[in-house]
C-alpha cells in the first residue's frame, strides 16, 4: 500500500483536513467567547420555537450578538430547507 501510494503520489493528506476543520471550530468558539452566558440557552430555545413551524437542522440556526458603543444587535440567521 505504502509503495503504491508513494508511486502514485496521491495520498490524501489528513492533516490538511484536520486544519480546515479546526479553523472553522476555532472561529466559532472565538465568536462565542465574549457573548453573555445566556446565549447558548437562548439559541436552543429559539431553535425549538422555529422547529414547531419548520423542520430545520440543529446547525441551521446561527445567532450572534454584536455590540456597538450605544447599542447591541442580536443577529439571527436561520437556513430554511428548500420547499
Amino acid at each position, binding site marked *: 500500500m505504502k*509503495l503504491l501510494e*508513494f508511486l502514485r503520489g496521491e495520498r490524501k493528506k*489528513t492533516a490538511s483536513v484536520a486544519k480546515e476543520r*479546526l479553523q472553522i471550530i476555532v472561529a466559532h*468558539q472565538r465568536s462565542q467567547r465574549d457573548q453573555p452566558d445566556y446565549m447558548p440557552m437562548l439559541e436552543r430555545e429559539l431553535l425549538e420555537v422555529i422547529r414547531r413551524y419548520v423542520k430545520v437542522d440543529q446547525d441551521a440556526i446561527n445567532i450572534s450578538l454584536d455590540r456597538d458603543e450605544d447599542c447591541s444587535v442580536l443577529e439571527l440567521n436561520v437556513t430554511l430547507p428548500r420547499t
Partner: protein
Amino acid sequence: MAKIIVVTSGKGGVGKTTSAAAIATGLALRGKKTVVIDFDVGLRNLDLIMGCERRVVYDLVNVIQGEAGLNQALIRDKRVDNLHILPASQTRDKDALTSEGVEKILDMLGKDFDYIICDSPAGIERGAQLAMYFADEAVVVTNPEVSSVRDSDRILGLLGSKTRRAERNQDPVKEHLLITRYNPSRVDDGDMLNLDDIQEILAIDLLGLIPESEAVLRASNQGIPVTHDAKSDAGQAYTDTVSRLLGEDVPLRFHEFQKKGLLSRMFGGGRR
C-alpha cells in the same frame, strides 16, 4: 515576587504533568528557586513523575485547612537544589481546594521562590480554573491533534476572562504554546498537523516543541524528570524551552524529519 506559571491544556493526557515537572526541574537547574504544585486533587501524579511519592506526608489541602504548615508539606527535590514539590491530596474531594486557600499559599510561596509552577488538572471546570486563576503566565500544552488544539483554544478563552489578571483589568496572562508529542515523520507524511498550522490556528507565541519520545516513558518509570536525560531529544527540547522561558533566543530543534533513503521509505521504515 515569584512568577506564577500555570501548565494547562483542557484535554487530559497531553503532557501537562510531564511538562510541569520538566520545566520546574529545568528552571531549578538554571539556579532559579522553584516550586511545582500539583493541582490535580484526587488524581495526583506529579509526585510520581518527580520521584518523591514515598516522601509525601502532607499535601496542599492539609495546608489550606491548617492541618500542616507549608514547610511541613513542601518536599525538597533529591537531585536539584532550589527545587520543591507541593503535592496534591490523593483522597480529598475537589471542593477542598478554595480560592482563598490557594491565594494564601501562593502569597506565602511568592516570598521565597522565583518561580511557582502550577500543574493543572484536565478539563475546563473549577479545578483547572483555580490552577490558572492567579497565573502571570500560561504554558498551553498542545498535541498535534484536533481535539487537543480545540481544547487549547477554549483554555485561551478562559485565560483571557477567568483569571485574576483579566478580572482586574491588569496586563493579560502571558500565553505560551508548548507543542508536545510531535512526530516529524508523521507530519512529513501529511498525517499530523504541523507546527505552523497549530501556531496559525491558536495564534500565540511558540515556547517550545517536544517530540514524541521514548525517553519520556523511561523518565516516568524512574521518577526522574526527563530534563535530567540530557542526551535525549525530549530532555534537550525541555532545556531549550526553559531557556526561552528565561527570555533567551534559542533555535527550534527536533521539528524536522531526518529523511531516510528511498528503500527504507518504500518498505515503511517509520520512526518510532
